[in-house]
């Protein structure tokens, strides 16, 4: 096998950058989520839009922290709302991610967007300073040589694997499924459409 590629970044100067990230699902193709209100975990079937919106949030955060231009995700799909099967708290699906997923997306945003952008800014700065400036009358002319040494990017984050735990709940109202903790039957309403339900 050849050496692992160190850097698969796209050119960060492009107006649009296409990111490709792999999110592992459990054996039954469910994706682990966490309720932002009660903190308990459940699983749903997932859509790419969920990750696009959550990634956008992390792109903005790391851009702010690193002082680089923020990025916004070009995503046509609307944000979907989910209802927590434990506490009934309703939130956008992009807000119902586990700490593990958020950490993964943050590392991804940092490595694939913010750090390359920062490296480019510093390289541009070094180049402009290295060219020096000549002053006119009344000004002191100073010439500074600056060299930007690009440090290696951190390793690309790995997502998963996820354990095939929990019990499947089939919502007959909208024919969709989720997974909840073993023994939890007090699901008052459908996670997707909010219809009042009883678990049998």
């Amino acid at each position, binding site marked *: 096998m050849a050496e692992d590629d160190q850097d698969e970044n796209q050119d960060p100067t492009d107006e649009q950058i296409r990111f490709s990230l792999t999110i*592992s699902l459990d054996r039954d193709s469910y994706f682990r989520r966490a309720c932002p209100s009660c903190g308990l975990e459940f699983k749903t079937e997932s859509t790419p839009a969920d990750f696009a919106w959550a990634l956008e949030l992390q792109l903005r955060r790391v851009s702010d922290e690193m002082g680089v231009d923020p990025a916004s995700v070009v995503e046509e799909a609307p944000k979907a709302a989910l209802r927590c099967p434990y506490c009934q708290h309703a939130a956008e699906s992009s807000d119902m991610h586990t700490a593990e997923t958020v950490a993964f997306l943050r590392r991804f945003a940092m490595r694939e967007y913010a750090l390359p952008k920062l490296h480019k800014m510093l390289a541009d700065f070094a180049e402009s300073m290295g060219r020096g400036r000549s002053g006119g009358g009344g000004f002191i002319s100073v010439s500074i040589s600056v060299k930007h040494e690009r*440090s290696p990017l951190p390793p690309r984050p790995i997502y998963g694997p996820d354990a095939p735990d929990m019990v*499947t709940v089939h919502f007959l109202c909208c024919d969709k499924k989720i997974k909840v903790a073993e023994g939890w039957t007090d699901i008052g309403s459908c996670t997707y459409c909010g219809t*009042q*339900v*009883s*678990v049998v």
Partner: protein
Amino acid sequence: MATELSKDEVVDALRVFKTRRDNLLHEDESTFDHHLERFVEACRTNPLVRRVLAPLEAKVDVDADAWLQAAGERGAKLSFPAESDQELVLRYRVIAKAAEDENLVRRFGFGRGAHKMSEWVPLFLSLIVRPFAEDLSHRVGEAANMATPEARAVQAVPYSRIPSPKEVRIFLSHKSEDKPLVLRYYDALKVAGFDPWLDKPEMPAGSNLERAVLRGIEESCAAVFFVTENFKDERYLAAEIDYAIMQKREKGEKFAIITLRYANTVPIPRLLTPYIFTDVANDLEGFNELVRALPIELGPVRWKARVV
């Protein structure tokens, strides 16, 4: 033979593995040595990781020292075995050696032109650790799947689809001469989990037949008429047809009038012809038609209490 792991143990083992892996890959390089030791410790003790690595270590023979010596030569191209098991074990042995020899990562970096810790640690992580962690993660995930039974399933039924126990009975209308035939249906429906209504078992001595029949039909989601040579549209049978039609008008789709005709020479009563009727050759066929025509269905499959 590997010991069985409970579902909780699988979840916990995966969580620990992922934490150690991500700490090694992403924490600050000043803590690299510590996280490297912790990761290697997890590879040696984590029950899920052992399920992956132990058989490979016993099977695969690779010389990590020779590989490191070749890789340490300045400008040498890194070359890994083509066979994935061999590559995984080679990477694991290199990582384990790095945990024991604090200068190994530095030497590896120097050989590849990295002269500062801020360069050789990311280099070692990217070239050696991450590919190992990615492959191992995939295999550990498979091991977790193998160790965990299939997920159980329950249904979340909308309230609008949950009937009251007082509206799901199945009223069996018949001539008394057909009692043996109808009793077979009664028993079969009971065994299948339905709640059939039949005059004899449902009526204590001295009950008013008309009122009992009316209440029986009111508590039902279907009225089943058995048309045989004995059937005559008169007296109680005629009253039951009238009551059933009343219920149908009141409950709509939630009430079915089902006619099973055993003798196709006997005419279906005219009042029943707008509703479901079918000619049946035997009880099994009749039972099948009856269940298909009901407006209710039974719940998900489960083990009987006596076997668990």
